[in-house]
């Protein structure tokens, strides 16, 4: 518990509590606003050639929130990975870890304190980001119920949880922060590749979460696929944390 408090304090000191939520909010409102102003933007950069007409697509609220999510899946994940790459690896490099582990602290507590404090940060940021996005969508595009927002946040948060767990796992394995970030992103890319190739076999692969979320918004009901994928993602995340505790114990 003290370790957890120390983590929270540290994340506050290095301003993560300020900039991560802000960046996530920025990322999630960028797309709704730019797609709303697309006609004006085209006009202001010179407009379309004479005579050509471009039908502006009318976006449905679910599509817009999916834009926010895809923005978060690319840039958001990148930011999260870069933000978390040094949590353990950096501390080990500078020797803080030894200072902590000299005291009677279980490796288990050390890792889980890191994991939980990061997750708190990520989930709160995600919620704030999607909340502002939801506000804009209701303002500009149309209704999206608050319950739906909560569902989206929950299921999408699981995906980010997996990303954080992956990052923690590599953190426990490797001491160089840059390499941690690289391997995490590489793994995510390989996962999406696997997902594309074996899509018909791996129906419950974590990468499918967003598409099932879209399904849920379109059909207005929770599909078993979505729930199963969510479970798989959760199990994978927990497995990664357990694995990282184990490797950390072996390595140190």
């Amino acid at each position, binding site marked *: 518990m003290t370790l957890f408090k120390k983590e929270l304090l540290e994340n506050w000191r290095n301003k993560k509590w300020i900039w991560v939520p*802000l960046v996530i909010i*920025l990322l999630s409102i960028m797309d709704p606003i730019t797609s709303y102003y697309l006609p004006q933007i085209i006009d202001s950069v010179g407009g379309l050639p004479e005579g050509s007409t471009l039908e502006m697509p009318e976006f449905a609220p679910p599509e817009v929130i999916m834009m926010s999510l895809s923005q978060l899946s690319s840039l958001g994940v990148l930011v999260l990975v870069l933000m978390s790459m040094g949590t353990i690896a950096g501390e080990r490099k500078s020797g803080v870890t030894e200072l902590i582990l000299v005291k009677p602290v279980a490796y288990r507590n050390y890792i889980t304190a890191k994991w939980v404090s990061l997750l708190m940060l990520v989930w709160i940021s995600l919620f704030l980001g999607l909340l502002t996005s939801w506000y804009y969508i209701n303002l500009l595009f149309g209704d999206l119920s608050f319950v739906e927002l909560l569902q989206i946040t929950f299921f999408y948060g699981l995906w980010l949880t997996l990303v954080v767990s992956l990052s923690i796992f590599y953190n426990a394995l490797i001491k160089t922060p840059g390499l941690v970030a690289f391997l995490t992103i590489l793994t995510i890319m390989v996962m999406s590749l696997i997902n594309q190739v074996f899509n018909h076999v791996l129906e419950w692969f974590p990468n499918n979460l967003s598409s099932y979320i879209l399904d849920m918004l379109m059909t207005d009901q929770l599909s078993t696929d979505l729930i199963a994928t969510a479970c798989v993602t959760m199990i994978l995340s927990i497995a990664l944390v357990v694995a990282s505790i184990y490797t950390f114990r072996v390595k140190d």
Partner: protein
Amino acid sequence: MEAFNWGLIAPILVIQGILIIVAMIDLIRTDYTNGPKWLWVLIIIFVSTLGPILYFVLGRRQR
């Protein structure tokens, strides 16, 4: 063309402003950064949005 609604864009500008200010305060208060301090000042102020993020991710030295 309807009037451009600044109220919608304002939050983005505010968030960017906060990011810049927080990054600057942090930069002034720390003693060591990766790379020269004046360079970070330029990056934070002139590279919009990305500058402060870059500073937080790369510029702060792990203690």
